[in-house]
């Protein structure tokens, strides 16, 4: 991997949750994120909620992709990669932006969502209704 990447202007706004911005060449990037996301109609949260071990989503194995057999690969580099302007609003949850070359990118994210909505079963609420 010897090609040069040239970027004239780079503008990035937000980089969160194991995301990576890398300028230059590297060998390996492997970010990982585990998320338990809870949306409540009544916004009351306890700060220590959520146990990754309780949900099989965070334990199960990734499916393995078959490796293509017997591919003889030859490449020739004949020029630079040039981008005048990159404008990126946000990177989130193991996302990456790289200006440069890399050998391996291995990124993993697991997101478990919960929605605790008032409309599904109003009788089940012990909380007072939210103020208007």
């Amino acid at each position, binding site marked *: *991997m010897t*090609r040069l*990447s040239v970027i004239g202007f780079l503008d990035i706004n937000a980089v969160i949750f194991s995301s990576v911005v890398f300028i230059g*060449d590297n060998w390996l990037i492997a970010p990982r*994120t585990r998320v338990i996301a809870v949306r*409540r*109609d*009544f916004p009351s949260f*306890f700060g220590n*909620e959520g*146990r990754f071990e*309780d949900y099989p*989503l965070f334990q*199960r194995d*990734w499916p393995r992709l078959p490796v*293509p057999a017997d*591919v*003889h690969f*030859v490449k*020739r*580099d004949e020029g*630079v*990669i*040039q*981008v005048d*302007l*990159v*404008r*990126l*609003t*946000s*990177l*989130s*949850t*193991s*996302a*990456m*932006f*790289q*200006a*440069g*070359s*890399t*050998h*391996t*990118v*291995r*990124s*993993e*994210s*697991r*997101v*478990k*969502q*919960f*929605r*605790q909505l008032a409309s*599904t079963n109003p009788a*089940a609420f*012990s909380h007072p209704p939210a103020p208007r």
Partner: protein
Amino acid sequence: MNLQVVNKEIHIGVIRVIGVASSSLLLVGDACNINLSAMADTPPEAVGPVVPLAAER
């Protein structure tokens, strides 16, 4: 199988992206291996009353 690739010069004007999320990659360059995985779970039973999740250990 034989695979021959010639990387010529590339010139791009503007790349404008709102969001790169959940194990996605925006790469201006070359790579040998790219392996991006994401799992997401929002089952119907995730809709329910307000009960606190079990506390972390």
